[in-house]
């Protein structure tokens, strides 16, 4: 069939020839304004083949994404969970049960909610410290000056890095998360990042005693065997990515929403019991990680579309979280939305290991920001986004009025 016939056939069915879309989750279009595209794909082409990055299937409906997350026997994580590949397998996410659970159990207890709650007082002090630094200013960048500065320091301390390591870690993780990491520069950055993490772990193994995740990784074992330094480095790398590039974004997205919805701001202040559902709703609405990958371990179908074994499946967490088949008013924040079966933390065995810490940090960050400022207004025309696995809010000028 010629190209023109192909396009004409597609035109009969809809106005867009989907085979010509070349869907690219790391493109600026998807980073800046993906909502209409995702809505159209959910309706017209919920399982879309893209020739980008060597070929992949993009799945956009909640029902299908749910199955991919939960049905790990069919949709394996062991061949990688990103497109393009990271420089090495990241543990535990790039593994399948039952081995996966053994890796997780090393870290799980320290990030269980009852343990995370013990961090609340210093996390609050960190939020206040960051706001104190802005004292007297009526304009600043919400993302850089508050949300990321605060959230990254929370993650850093729980993981066990020194505060002076933040700039380096930020540089490496930013390039590997949002840049074209499958090129020569990406390989160099990955090498530096890997060497630093490995050195940190080796050093910690000679001076144990800290109460942090690095210590747990150093001491960790699977099935009675101590983790190799490669496994340790892999786990620490994933914790660093997950901690540094998610929480600050949810906080920023929440505050941007609240800046233009004063009624929600007042509701949260008047009824703090709304916070529990509100935090999950902000995670759904913002969806900081918008795309992840699995690989089919056997022949299957998705939404009636036959997919052979060995295919790469890119699934849309951001799209699923805004699927009108599941969520009323999907593109609005509904503070008391319940139930709220979002995949902002994933689902199935790979549910975000830091979800309880992330939710606590967002909550405290919101509470302290709203306690400090009686009014705040985002400049919506100047919000910048960056693409990658996530949809990263990179900048947002904010004007504030202190109480």
């Amino acid at each position, binding site marked *: 069939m010629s190209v023109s016939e192909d396009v004409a056939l597609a035109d009969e069915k809809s106005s867009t020839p989907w085979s010509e879309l070349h869907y690219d989750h790391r493109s600026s279009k998807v980073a800046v304004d993906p909502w209409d595209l995702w809505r159209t794909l959910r309706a017209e082409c919920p399982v879309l083949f893209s020739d980008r990055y060597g070929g992949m299937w993009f799945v956009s409906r909640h029902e299908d994404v749910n199955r991919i997350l939960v049905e790990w026997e069919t949709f394996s994580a062991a061949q990688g969970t990103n497109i393009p590949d990271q420089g090495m397998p990241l543990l535990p996410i790039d593994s399948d049960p039952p081995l996966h659970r053994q890796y997780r159990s090393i870290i*799980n*207890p320290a990030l*269980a*909610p009852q343990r995370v709650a013990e961090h609340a007082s210093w996390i609050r002090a960190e939020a206040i410290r960051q706001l104190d630094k802005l004292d007297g200013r009526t304009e600043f960048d919400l993302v850089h000056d508050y949300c990321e500065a605060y959230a990254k320091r929370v993650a850093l301390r729980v993981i066990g890095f020194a505060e002076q390591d933040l700039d380096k870690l930020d540089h490496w993780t930013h390039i590997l998360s949002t840049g074209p990491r499958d090129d020569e520069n990406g390989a160099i950055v990955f090498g530096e990042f890997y060497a630093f993490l490995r050195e940190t772990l080796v050093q910690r193994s000679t001076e144990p005693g800290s109460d942090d995740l690095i210590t747990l990784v150093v001491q960790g074992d699977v099935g009675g065997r101590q983790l190799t330094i490669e496994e340790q480095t892999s786990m620490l790398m994933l914790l660093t990515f997950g901690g540094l590039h998610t929480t600050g974004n949810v906080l920023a997205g929440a505050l941007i929403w609240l800046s233009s919805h004063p009624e929600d701001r007042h509701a949260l202040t008047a009824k703090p019991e709304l916070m*529990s559902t509100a935090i999950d709703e902000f995670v759904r609405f913002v969806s900081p990680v918008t795309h992840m990958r699995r690989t089919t371990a056997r022949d299957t179908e998705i939404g009636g579309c036959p997919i052979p074994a060995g295919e790469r499946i890119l699934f849309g967490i951001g799209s699923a979280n805004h699927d009108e088949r599941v969520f009323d008013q999907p593109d609005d924040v509904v503070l008391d939305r319940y*139930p709220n079966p979002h995949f902002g933390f994933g*689902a199935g065995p790979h*549910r975000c290991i830091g*979800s*309880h810490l992330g939710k606590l940090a967002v909550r405290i960050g919101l509470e302290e920001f709203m306690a400090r400022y009686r009014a705040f207004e985002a400049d919506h025309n100047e919000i910048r986004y960056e693409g990658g696995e996530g949809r990263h809010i990179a900048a947002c000028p904010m004007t504030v009025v202190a109480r």
Partner: protein
Amino acid sequence: MKLVVTIDRCEGHGRCYDACPEVFEPDVEGYAVVRDVLVEDGTELAARVRHAALGCPERAIAVVVAVAG
């Protein structure tokens, strides 16, 4: 009549023990377990258990009325 509450394949989202801590609690790794408490059907607590089950994103919580005897 009392409710029988069971959890199958919990992934540790923690929504149930946030919504109804009287009946659900995290184990040492954060996965949910059902506390050893009596929940009579028709009570306010029973309604809260059902509400918590509804909120599970894994749909992993089953709530049934025990057969008498």
